[in-house]
C-alpha cells in the first residue's frame, strides 16, 4: 500500500512512496527486437536537490592567502574544498509537499523543496505512455540569499545499487562519450587533490551516465550543464548558480541577477520593480538499462531531445472539415 507504481507501456515501471511522493525504484525491461524483453533491471533511485555555497573571497579567504578566487562565471569553487552537498528538505506548497496528478497520458508527481516553507524548487516527475524515459521537469528560483550566502543548485540522483568505483561518462559536444575517473587525470599524474568537488566537475552538453556490469543509469539534459559523480552510486548535475561576489575575471559583477522573471520594460512590469532573482525551468530525462549500456541508452534519445518536434497551430471553421459540397458545385467547378 505504501508505494504507487506506474508503467510507461514500454517495459519501464517507476515506483513512488505514496506519502512523500519520493521516487524509490525503477524496474526496466528494454524491449529488444522481436518484441521480447531483456532481463529485468531493478534499480533503487532517489532524487535529491541541494546546493554548494560558493567560495566568497570576502569572507572565505584564508588569512594571508591573497589568491581569493571566488566562484563565478569562470570558476566553480565551493566555499570549502570538500563541502558536503546541502540537501534541501521537501516543503509544503499549499496544503502539501507532494501531489500525484493524473494526466491524459500518465502521471505527474509534483514535489516542492526549500527551507522554512519557502519553496524555491518545484519538481515534476512524469511517467508518460510510450515515452522511453522518466521526465523530471524542474523550476528553480528565486534562489534565496537572505542568509548572506550564494548557492550553486544541484540535482543529485542516488543509485546506490550501481558500483561505479568513481567512474562516470560525459559527452563531448554530443559526440564521443569520455570516461571520467574521480581524482584522476589521464594525461598527467594528479597526486594532490586541492578541490575534490570542483576538480571533479565536467561539462555535460547532452548526457551523463554511470554503469556497472549489471545496471546503467543515464541523465539526458536539455542544455549545457556541469556534472559529476562525487559519491559512488550517485550522479549530479548543476542547474543554477547565484553568487554574491565577483570572480574578478569578467564583467565586474557576480552571478546575481535580480531582474529575475519580470521584464522590467512596460507593459509587462514597471521598471522600478526589481525581481527577487532569476527563475529557471528545465527538463532532465532519466533512462535505466542493463549492464554497461549507458552510451546506448543516451544515444537512443539524445538526438531527439536536441531536435524536438516543432509545433504549428492553426484554426478553421468546423464546417470546413466535412464536405458539404453538392453536385452542382461540382458541375460549376468543372464548368
Amino acid at each position, binding site marked *: 500500500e505504501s508505494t504507487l507504481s506506474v508503467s510507461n507501456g514500454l517495459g519501464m515501471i517507476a515506483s513512488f512512496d505514496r506519502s512523500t511522493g519520493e521516487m524509490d525504484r525503477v524496474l526496466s525491461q528494454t524491449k529488444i527486437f522481436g518484441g521480447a524483453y531483456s532481463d529485468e533491471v531493478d534499480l533503487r533511485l532517489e532524487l535529491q536537490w541541494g546546493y554548494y555555497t560558493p567560495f566568497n573571497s570576502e569572507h572565505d579567504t584564508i588569512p594571508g592567502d591573497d589568491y581569493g578566487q571566488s566562484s563565478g562565471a569562470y570558476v566553480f569553487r565551493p566555499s570549502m574544498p570538500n563541502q558536503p552537498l546541502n540537501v534541501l528538505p521537501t516543503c509544503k506548497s499549499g496544503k502539501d509537499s507532494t501531489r500525484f496528478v493524473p494526466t491524459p497520458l*500518465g502521471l505527474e508527481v509534483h514535489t516542492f523543496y526549500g527551507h522554512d516553507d519557502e519553496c524555491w524548487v518545484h519538481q515534476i516527475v512524469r511517467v508518460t505512455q510510450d515515452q*522511453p524515459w522518466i521526465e523530471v521537469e524542474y523550476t528553480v528560483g528565486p534562489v534565496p540569499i537572505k542568509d548572506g550566502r550564494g548557492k550553486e543548485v544541484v540535482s543529485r540522483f542516488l543509485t546506490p545499487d550501481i558500483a561505479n568505483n568513481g567512474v562516470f561518462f560525459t559527452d563531448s559536444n554530443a559526440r564521443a562519450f569520455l570516461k571520467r575517473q574521480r581524482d584522476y587525470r589521464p594525461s598527467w599524474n594528479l597526486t594532490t587533490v586541492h578541490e575534490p568537488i570542483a576538480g571533479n566537475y565536467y561539462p555535460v552538453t547532452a548526457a551523463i551516465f554511470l554503469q556497472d556490469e549489471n545496471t546503467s543509469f543515464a541523465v539526458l539534459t536539455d542544455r549545457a550543464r556541469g556534472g559529476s559523480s562525487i559519491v559512488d552510486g550517485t550522479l549530479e548535475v548543476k542547474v543554477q548558480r547565484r553568487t554574491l561576489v565577483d570572480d574578478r575575471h569578467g564583467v565586474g559583477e557576480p552571478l546575481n541577477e535580480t531582474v529575475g522573471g519580470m521584464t522590467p520594460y512596460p507593459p509587462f512590469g514597471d521598471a522600478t520593480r526589481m525581481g527577487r532573482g532569476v527563475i529557471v525551468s528545465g527538463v532532465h530525462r532519466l533512462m535505466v538499462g542493463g549492464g554497461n549500456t549507458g552510451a546506448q541508452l543516451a544515444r*537512443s534519445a539524445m538526438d531527439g531531445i536536441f531536435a524536438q518536434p516543432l*509545433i504549428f497551430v*492553426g484554426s478553421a471553421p468546423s464546417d470546413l*472539415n466535412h464536405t458539404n459540397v453538392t453536385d452542382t458545385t461540382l458541375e460549376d467547378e468543372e464548368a
Partner: protein
Amino acid sequence: SHPFYELEDALGVVQHHDSITGTGKEHVARDYSRRVQAGIDKATPHVLSIILNQMFPNRTLKSAIDLQNSGLQERLEETLQYCPLLLNESICEAATNTVFEGGKENMYVVVYNPLYQQSLQPRTWVVRVPVSMPGIYSVERVDDDIILSRDQTGNNKQLVHARVVNARNDNYTTHENNTIWQVEFLAGPLLPLGAVTYRVALQQPLGETESLNEDDEILPNNFIEIS
C-alpha cells in the same frame, strides 16, 4: 537574403560561453534571446510554406473534395503559426484564439519532426497545447486523410480532458490569472522530416469546477497500478 540567414547568424553569436551557460549579464542574455527570436521569426514563414505544401500538395481542383480542402487550406494559410510552447512560457495565440464555443471552430496542430535519421523506436512526442476553455476535446489525426476526414469513423480519435495547469512565467502569459487550460496528447509515429496533423475539437464543454483538476486522485485508465 536567405530566410534562414538571420537565424544562422544569431546561432553563431550564441556559441559564446556566456550564452550557453547564462553567465552573462541579464540584459546580454536577453539580447541573445532577442537575436535568436528575430532569426526564428524570419525563418518561420519559409518553414510554414514547406509544411503547408506537404499538407496540401498542389492538386488540380479535380474533385469536390479538393474544393473543400482549398477552403481549409486557405484558412490554415492564414492562421497556422509556430508555437514554441517552451517550459517557461505558455504562448500560442492561434490555440488560445480558436473559438471552440458552440463547435464554431476547430484547432489544427501540425507536429513536424526535424530529425532526419530513423530512430529504432517509432518516434512519438507528447504535445501540450493551451486551449481557451475547459472541456473534453477530441483529438483526431487527419494528416494525409484531411481530404477524407469526413469518412473517418473516428477510430483514431482520442478523447482528452483539458486540464488546468499553472501558466509558465507569468510575465508573458496573456491570461489574467495564472492558470491555463491545456490539452495533452501523444503525437506520432513521426517519420524522419515528416509532419502529422491533428484536429482538436471541443466535444463537451465543462464548467470550470467540474473539469479534471489537479487534485483528482483518479489515475488514467491507461496506467496499470501495480501494488
